[in-house]
Every structure is written in C-alpha cells, then in structure tokens.
C-alpha cells in the first residue's frame, strides 16, 4: 500500500479501546473526536450494546461485528460504519470502518427494489378492497332488488286482477295510474340491477332461438298504446328479406328496442316515432340487421350526444326515468358486439340505429311461437304452489283458480311440498327459488333424484323468483326444473308457462 492510499485508508478507520466500565482508554479520533477518559456510552447510544456483549462473550466467541451502523457525532451527518468489538479480559477493542459512500451507493438499488415491491403489494390490497366493495354492492343491489321485487309482484298481479272487476270510471283511472307507476318502478329496479351487473362484468348474454318478426310484433303491440295515447304517429316497418329465425338474447334485444322507443316517447311531444328493422347483409350462418328508432322530438345537441349514453344522464330533469336506459342500451349493444349510431338535430328529431350481427337459426320455428298450448276444455289439473311469500302465494292462487282449469294447493316450504307430492298427484309444481330452508333448486333436485315413482319424479316444475342472478333459467334447468319465470310476471306470462308445461307433459 502506497503512503497516500495508506493515509486514505486510515482516515476511514478509527480504533478505540474502552475499559470494563466503558471509559475510553485509547482513541485515534480518525472519524469521531471521542477523547480518552470520556464514557463510550455517552458517545452514542449504540455503544450500550457493550453491556450485552460482555454477557455474550464466551471462549468460542469474543469478536462481534455490527455492519452498517449509523453513527453520528453532534450536528455532523451520520457515518455508516461497520463496527467490530473484540472483548477480552478487562478491555474492549473497537474498530470502526466508515463505509458511508459504499453503503449509500448500494442503497439506491434496494430503495428502487423496495419501492416497486411496496407499490405492487399495496395495489394488490387496494384491488382486494375494491373487489370486496364491488361484491358487497352487487350483493346489496341483488338483495334489495329481490326484497323490492317480491312485493311488487303482488302489487302488479293484484292490479291485473283488480282491472277485471267491476270498476267505475274513477276507479279505472286510479288503477291505471297505479299500474303505470308500478311498471315504472319495475323498470327502475331492473335498470339498477342491470347496470350494476354490467359494470361489474357479471352480466352474461343468453343464447336462444327466437323469431325476430314475432319479437317485432310484440314490441309494436306493447308500445302502440302509449305512443298513440300521446297523439303521435307510430310508424313501423320490417324488412321482408329478413330471415326471422335467429339465435341471440331475445330478452336483451327486446330491452334495447324498448329502451330506445321509451326514450323517443319521452322526448317527442308531436309528430312521429318510427321503429323499423332492416336486413343489411347476410350469410348462411349470420345476418346483419339494423334496428332503427327515429323520432320527431326535441333532438340532441352535438355537445349532449356523448353524454346521453352516460349513467344518470337526462336532457330534461323533469322527465321521469332512472337515466340509465341509454347507458344500458349502449352496454348491451357492446356486449352483443354491435354498434349504435346516433343522428340528431335540435328541434328536428333523433335517429338511433343499432347494427347487430346475429346467428341464423336452423330454420325451424321456435317452439313458443309455433304452439299456443291450449289445454282441453272441461278437464282440470292439480297444481302445487310452493311459495313462502303469502301475498305471492295468494296471487298465484287467484290467477290459477280464475282459469277454471286447475285445482291448486299451496304450501310455504320445500319440506311441506315433499309431503304434499307424496300424498297427492300433481300435474305441475310452481316453486319459488328462495324458500326458507331447502331452496326451490334443492326441492327440484330431490324430486328428480329421490323418487322411483315416475308420477312424482317427472312432475313438471316451474321455478319462479325475484332473484336477479345471472343465468337463472340455466340454473333452474340444471337443478331439474322445466322452466323459469322471473318475478314480477304478468298473468299472461304465467299462464303461457303453466299451459305449456302441462300440455307437454301430457303429450309425451
């Protein structure tokens, strides 16, 4: 080692010797100006470790090294040192190596490494919290939806029954208002739940064969009344070149078109609403269609065009609605891998065009369209209703008994249902899904799996529920049910399902 290097080296090292009491008996003061006769314990709290070292010393071990210790004297910056203690009888030799710069250089690497790991781990936790919040929100919405839909089913059902009684003019008008408001409430609940599922990514489209012309007629019929009531001209048109038998999510297609027509109706005071479906192009497997809803309403300005597809967006705050309709339309169209186009001029009107590519069905008409499943007159069928909501149970009884074709028994639990089917022959079971102990799904599984008697094992089962979970129909079928109906349902929807299931069971 040359003289210069030797000097540099020694400037980075300090030798200190202390006695048993910690009094400094030698110090070269190269790094720290600790003086002979000073107490090492006063020099820095680190040196209080000496007491422990004296206890730890043994015949095998009398040297202890502490790497990377921050030592500081007065207001000077810390030095980062390796400190070695050699404990021998009566005195302790301390060698202090100053490696400040080397350690600081090394620390840059560990700082970067630590920062990146910390960020990743924090992000993981944040994601976890977000997922938990999202799940809670979705569960809450699903639960509240169920709680609200169940009484609404009764309200809507009883309104339908009330409509058929002898009402005077004023009562009829009041019933119409209640009906409109409950329909509106049902739409809001539906929108809330749909948007929640779409946003959370838990929304799945169903695939079924359906007849587009039939869907077109249904939509025209259900919207004709409200549109003409507003003294608007309802123009409708369907392309004759269309292959009507398609595969897709009929319910959601209905929802898209209904939302667009409902939106047009809200913003059109005079003139017309036009609904048309056109074939754009087609192959043997697929067909591209354009669904157009046009109106002569207030129109949408350029700056509002992007905003109207956002949640809770309403051009006119006085207009009733959840403000979710067009957002749902856009999301559903996107899930169907389609496109929505908007042309509009303020004061002239708006034109929404939905372009979708749908699979062609094999050509056979759908079962529901082809058949009407009329039950033979004069014959009566016994039905078991399994429903723990007494109002809904009462509603089902009223609707079914009013047809004159059914005997109806009602129970409130799956256990009671099992007893009933063992004692009496039923042609159909209508069961709620959310029962108290065994669920409707479990009841269906038990009936399908535990009975050798085909009269029990093969009873058709119609599941009903206000639960807004995805793929309820598929879940019901998987559990052994024959069909599923969401609450709230209309009398017509219920009877269609009931008649169909009994008809098919009797024509096997």
């Amino acid at each position: 080692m040359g003289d210069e290097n030797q000097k540099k080296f020694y400037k980075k090292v300090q030798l200190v010797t202390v006695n048993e009491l910690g009094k400094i008996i030698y110090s070269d003061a190269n790094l720290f100006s600790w003086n002979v006769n000073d107490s090492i314990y006063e020099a820095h709290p680190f040196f209080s470790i000496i007491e422990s070292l004296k206890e730890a010393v043994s015949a095998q071990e009398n040297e202890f090294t502490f790497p990377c210790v921050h030592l500081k004297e007065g207001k000077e910056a810390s030095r980062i040192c390796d400190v070695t203690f050699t404990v021998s009888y009566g005195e302790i030799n301390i060698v202090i190596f100053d490696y400040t710069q080397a350690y600081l250089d090394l620390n840059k690497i560990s700082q970067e490494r630590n920062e990146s790991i910390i960020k990743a781990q924090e992000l993981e936790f944040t994601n976890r919290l977000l997922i938990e919040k999202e799940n809670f929100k979705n569960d809450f919405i699903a639960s509240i939806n169920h709680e609200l839909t169940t009484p609404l089913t009764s309200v809507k059902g009883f309104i339908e029954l009330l409509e058929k009684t002898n009402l005077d003019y004023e009562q009829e008008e009041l019933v119409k208002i209640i009906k409109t408001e409950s329909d509106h409430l049902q739409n809001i609940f539906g929108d809330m739940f749909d948007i929640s599922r779409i946003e959370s990514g838990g929304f799945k489209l169903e695939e079924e064969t359906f007849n587009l012309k039939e869907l077109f007629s249904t939509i025209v019929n259900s919207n004709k009344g409200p549109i003409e009531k507003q003294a608007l001209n309802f123009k409708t048109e369907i392309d004759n070149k269309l292959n009507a038998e398609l595969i897709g999510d009929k319910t959601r297609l209905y929802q898209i078109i209904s939302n667009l027509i409902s939106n047009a109706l809200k913003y059109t005071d005079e003139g017309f609403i036009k609904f048309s479906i056109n074939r754009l192009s087609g192959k043997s497997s697929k067909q591209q269609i354009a669904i157009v809803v046009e109106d002569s309403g207030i129109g949408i300005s350029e700056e509002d065009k992007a905003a109207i597809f956002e949640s809770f967006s309403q051009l006119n705050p006085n207009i009733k609605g959840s403000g979710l309709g067009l957002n749902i339309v856009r999301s559903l169209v996107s899930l169907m891998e389609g496109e929505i186009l908007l042309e509009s001029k303020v004061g002239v009107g708006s034109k929404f065009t939905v372009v979708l590519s749908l699979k062609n069905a094999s050509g056979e008409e759908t079962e529901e369209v082809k058949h009407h499943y009329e039950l033979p007159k004069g014959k009566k069928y016994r039905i078991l209703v399994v429903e723990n909501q007494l109002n809904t149970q009462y509603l089902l009884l009223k609707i079914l008994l009013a047809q004159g074709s059914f005997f109806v028994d009602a129970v409130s639990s799956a256990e009671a249902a099992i007893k009933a089917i063992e004692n009496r022959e039923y042609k159909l079971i209508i069961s709620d899904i959310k029962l108290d102990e065994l669920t409707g799904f479990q009841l269906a599984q038990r009936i399908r799996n535990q009975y050798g008697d085909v009269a029990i094992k093969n009873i058709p089962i119609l599941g009903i529920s206000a639960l807004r979970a995805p793929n309820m129909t598929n879940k019901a079928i998987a559990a052994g049910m024959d069909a599923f109906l969401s609450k709230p349902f209309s009398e017509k929807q219920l009877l269609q399902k009931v008649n169909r299931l009994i008809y098919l069971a009797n024509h096997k």
Partner: protein
Amino acid sequence: MIKLSKKVALVGSFGVGKTSLFRRFIDNEFSTDYKSTLGVQIQKKVITMDNGIELSMILWDTEGHENISEGRSSYLIGSHAFVYVFDITRIDTYKEINTQIEFLKNHFPNAVIKIVGNKLDAVSKKKAIETLKEYSVQYDYLTSAKTGDYVEELFADIAVDVTN
C-alpha cells in the same frame, strides 16, 4: 431514582413503517417520503415512568427483511423487547407472521414481543380487523405513525413490560 437502560429493536418487512414509528416516538415527526433504512439507526429516548423509574429506551430501527433470519443477526443481540411491525395494507408483510414470531420467541425467550400493524390511517379499522382475522394474525396494537394513533401507548406498554 432507579435508572435502567433497555434495548428495543424494531423488526419486520421493509416499508412497513418501522422508521416512521421510530421517528414519531422519538421526535414526534412524520414524513410521507419512503426512504429504505440502511442497516440500523439507533437513538435513545428517556422516559420517566409513573413508578419513578427513569428508563433509557435504546431503540434500534433495523432495515426491513421479510424473513428475520435473513437479516443481520448481530442487530438482535441483547434486545429486551422486539416490536414486530407489519403493514396492514400489504398482506405479504403478515401472512407468514407466525413463523417470524416463533423465530423470535425461540431465540429470545425472555424478550418482550409486541406485534404491531401499522398504517391504520390507510384503511378502516373494521376492514383491518376483518383482514387480519382472515389471516389469523394475533396483534397487540394497530397504529398509525402518520397520525400518531396508538404510538405512545405502544411504547409506554413496552416500557412497563421491560421494567417489570
């Protein structure tokens, strides 16, 4: 007056807030900037306790390691107490905590051990408790070096335990 000196080592994974707790307790200061601790920094805080004891608490703020046994073993020599700190918002800093605590108990059977979840300011206490329960984490304190919540209480508790 009885004067005692006790070594308290802060250990745990990196970035959990050991230095922040150390600075909050010693100087009542907090910084949001993260600077990874290099080696060990040692400071003394003198506490006069209710029973008249003047306790010099020698705090060793050690650099973070996910696994204590991988750290510098000399830093642990002579510790009268350990504060095992984890970050409530980073599951990786506590999911193997029982192994770490076992290591300390086995090697330092007479030392006081306090298990502390830090960064309580970053998450609701309810959520923190639920998550820790999910991972079966037994803790002594949930603290926030940022707000100072439960920091004084933690070290006061240690002071009592190491002088008993």
